């Protein structure tokens, strides 16, 4: 009987010890868990465009920018990209930039990723600007679940972060709020 209780206590003690280690490790790097939150400046990053050029995040300053991080195999990304594509057309002519950044460049050679993304663009008739991340953005922004959407203000600061599928109306509200703030600041 004592042996049975002893083994049970050892099991419980082991689980509690493991959980305590997890908690202690998490507390030590709490700020690094989860994605880079709103309020932080956007890290200086460079994406590869399908045309073979580089798109620096610094070049996006001066406009409200929506960056959607996605992959070709993610069903939620497909649905969100369709919304982002429609929003990009809706805000055409305004100081709003949309870039849909594919994350598969970190797992395959860039020419292959370009081909994959170009095929995807043609298949889904996307008009939103597309780019490819070689892995640096995923690490710098600590991207976990996808789609991952980051909304930047005109100064290049992260204002909103959405993990998972975000609704079109939520993104529109984010953009309009930042446009209003920018207009108020400029007066």
């Amino acid at each position, binding site marked *: 009987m004592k042996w049975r209780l002893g083994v049970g206590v050892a099991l419980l003690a082991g689980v509690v010890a493991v*959980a305590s280690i*997890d908690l202690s490790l998490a507390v030590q790097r709490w700020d690094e868990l989860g994605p880079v939150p709103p309020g932080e400046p956007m890290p200086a990053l460079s994406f590869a465009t399908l045309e073979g050029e580089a798109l620096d995040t610094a070049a996006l300053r001066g406009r409200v920018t929506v960056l959607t991080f996605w992959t070709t195999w993610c069903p939620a990304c497909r649905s969100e990209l369709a919304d982002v594509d429609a929003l990009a057309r809706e805000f055409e002519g305004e100081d709003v930039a949309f870039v849909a950044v594919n994350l598969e460049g970190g797992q395959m050679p860039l020419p292959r990723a370009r081909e994959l993304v170009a095929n995807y663009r043609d298949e889904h008739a996307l008009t939103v600007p597309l780019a490819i991340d070689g892995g640096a953005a995923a690490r710098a922004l600590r991207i976990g679940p996808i789609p991952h959407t980051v909304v930047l203000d005109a100064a290049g600061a992260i204002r909103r972060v959405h993990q998972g599928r975000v609704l079109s109306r939520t993104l529109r509200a984010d953009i309009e709020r930042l446009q209003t703030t920018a207009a108020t600041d400029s007066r």
Partner: protein
Amino acid sequence: MSGSCLMPVSAALERWGGLLIAPRSTLARLAPEADAHDGWWLGALYVLGAEFDDVLAAIATAIGLGGFGGAFAVVLALGRALIVPIVALAAADFVLGRARAYRSTVVLVPVVLGMTCVHVAEQLGFALGGARWVAVVGVAAASLVWLAWLRSAIAPQPSPSEVAASSVETQEESP
């Protein structure tokens, strides 16, 4: 805490310890309802022992992002964390059959032990990466094989319809 409050805890620990070192004799003298709440407790222990880092990361995300998205991240992490115990319980029901399924939570004891060991390996620096799923499937499969071996030690319980039928027969036989 009074001694009466500790009684169910020590009984549960004795039960889980017994299942690990002497499963057949432990099952043989286990009252039918003794492990009624073990599924909840072992599910919580599984999350703490095997997936707590992911849940903590989701909580940090929720605090960082705030709003519905943050809360959703925590719910999603808890759901992901509980997939293995839920699938193991469903498979245990299948392995034991309907008459013995009342003991299906027994499978969670080796699952908790095995997956806590896998997580300890991760904490010690063994980067399992994609192999983690192989370890998860291996632990769950070994636990189900162990349960199948124990199947004969679990007394079958009559289904409610069989109980009802037998009570009708008893009433008919009585004068």
